[in-house]
């Protein structure tokens, strides 16, 4: 076990998986010479050579489109999108090809592409360095989506994604890239997709979150202290989704608050609420509440704290339910 930050754990996973499987290569903007703008790919080019950690042209659709072709040549490309909002040019390739090509081949070819990107707000950055695009990705058939919140999961989930035979998108919460520290198993470490993590147990209200919002929920649980005992479910994987874990917790607490940074309308929180409204309706003792970003452009950073779900907003939602 080593104590690593979340972004160090990502780097560890990449080193481990590239060493393990010669078909894995990393492709993206500034991933090579610079080792990534967050150093997530540091050391890969020196260790594995410029052909396995490739500084691509500045073209996100080109990166993902080339990755489709690389799969046809037997590779397992790991594509970095430099930031959340800069991944949007790749959506066309994602939706029309990455999610459909295996189906198109009658199930005979596989497209084990991993797309990883830093995402989320709160980092005091200029415009378009703060988005939470997971809903665009998870709505796309043929794609899997995972979002770790701890260094150990960042390593294990990325390893699982790289080894997965299907295309997987991993969103890394950049807000806690360097502040989330924790024990990370050395060497090979895989966290299977589709298993939620009970970040903390509780009996009154279930807080469902992922990425950087898990810590916000844990802090809210602390802040609420005696007022309400909160169970925090870190779903870790949006598709496949661990419905059992979510439903079991709601069955126990009878109350649910869903938290994410992304804009509210048709965000992934809506899917979680719909799941509960379909399969846990008779367990519920109150409305299913969401604490999310707003349906507005991500704001100037001087007021971004008012946009991001906060301990106060989460606590207020919990109080509504237990009042």
């Amino acid at each position: 076990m080593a104590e690593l930050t979340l972004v160090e754990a990502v780097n560890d996973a990449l080193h481990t998986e590239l060493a393990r499987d010669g078909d894995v290569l990393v492709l993206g903007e500034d991933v090579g010479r610079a080792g990534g703008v967050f150093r997530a790919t540091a050391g890969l080019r020196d260790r594995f050579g410029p052909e396995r950690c490739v500084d691509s042209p500045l073209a996100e659709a080109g990166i993902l489109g080339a990755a489709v072709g690389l799969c046809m040549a037997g590779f397992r490309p790991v594509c970095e999108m430099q930031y959340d909002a800069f991944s949007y040019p790749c959506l066309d390739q994602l939706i029309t090809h990455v999610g459909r090509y295996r189906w198109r081949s009658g199930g005979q070819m596989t497209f084990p592409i991993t797309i990883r990107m830093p995402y989320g707000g709160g980092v005091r950055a200029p415009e378009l360095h703060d988005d939470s695009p997971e809903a665009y990705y998870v709505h796309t058939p043929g794609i899997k989506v995972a979002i770790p919140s701890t260094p150990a999961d960042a390593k294990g989930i990325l390893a699982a994604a790289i080894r997965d035979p299907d295309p997987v998108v991993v969103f890394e919460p950049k807000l806690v890239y360097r502040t989330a520290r924790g024990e990370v198993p050395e060497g090979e470490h895989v966290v299977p997709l589709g298993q939620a993590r009970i970040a903390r147990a509780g009996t009154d209200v279930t807080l469902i979150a992922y990425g950087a919002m898990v810590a916000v929920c844990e802090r809210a649980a602390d802040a609420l202290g005696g007022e309400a005992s909160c169970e925090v479910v870190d779903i870790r994987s949006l598709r496949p989704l661990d419905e059992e874990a979510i439903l079991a917790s709601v069955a126990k607490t009878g109350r649910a608050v869903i938290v994410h940074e992304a804009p509210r309308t048709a965000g992934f929180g809506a899917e979680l609420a719909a799941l509960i409204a379909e399969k846990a309706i008779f367990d519920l003792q109150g409305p299913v509440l969401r604490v999310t970003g707003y349906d507005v452009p991500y704001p100037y950073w001087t007021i971004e704290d008012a946009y991001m779900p906060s301990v106060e907003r989460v606590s207020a939602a919990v109080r509504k339910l237990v009042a």
Partner: protein
Amino acid sequence: MAAVTELRRVLDGGEPPPGLSEADLLELHRRMVLLRTYDERSVVFHRQGRIGTYAIFWNHEAIQAGATFALDDRDWIFPSYRESAIGLVRGMPVETILQWWRGHPSGWWSPADWNVASICVPIATHVPHAAGLAWGKKLRGEDAVAMAFFGDGATSEGAFHEGVNFAAVMGAPAVFVCNNNQWAISTPIEAQTRAESLADKAIGYGIPGVRVDGLDVLAVYDAAREAVARARSGGGPTLIEAVHYRAAPHATADDPSAYIDQARVDEERARECLGRYERFLERAGILTEEHAAAVRAEAEQALRAGIAAAEAEPPPDEQLLFDNAYVDPPPSLRNG
């Protein structure tokens, strides 16, 4: 200002390209006839309601047969819907392609079985795939080449730009064949580019660009042969612009009378690519009327057998909905 001015021609007077035996020239003819027959029969099948909307490639056979004749079987072909039947040159069964146009799952072949990628419907989006595959082959030290087909309209898409540039930067063994039939459905080439030639775009990517007469199968082959040799020997990609004028509707659903220049169409039909090649072969004493008739008969037989085989297939199982989307599907797959 245009750097690519020459329009390459071989038929009508030119010398046949090196390395083509009489047998090769006749095999090329056979492929053109097969493609032509597939296309003409498909239009009939559509009228008879036996296949769905169909993208007609009449008079595009010289480009498709000529360019692919420069490939080995280990090389990959990336077709658009306009080259839907290009698998025929690799021996793909007629019924497989007919089934694609009939919306039957058996029309979805595995690219790995033929080194022919899936028919690409979204314009130009397969160009980066060809770049990636070619680059991947190079990384593996295999000398396979990727050849992608797309139209004049496709050159306006960002995907074309990113894909060709990617291939150029990676020195990928790719050949980009632009079928410039001067129309994107109803949109004329002047609405796609202000350049004098589409081959000129190659200059901006630092790769060779060639213009050929798209109705001259030997000119297309010759340009492709050079491009494939260059790609195989590490010289990187080439952009080939095959120029002609669309002489048939965009697809069975389309009525060009609203926009096309009929006089120009008639001209084009007069220099129709298969007849032109046949006259060349006859002048050279290579093709006899008997042989030509036999080739046509064989092709017609292949189409008769193909549509029969397609129509004989049982309707697909609805459970196919849930197959093939994932290797390892999420539990929610069947929720709906």
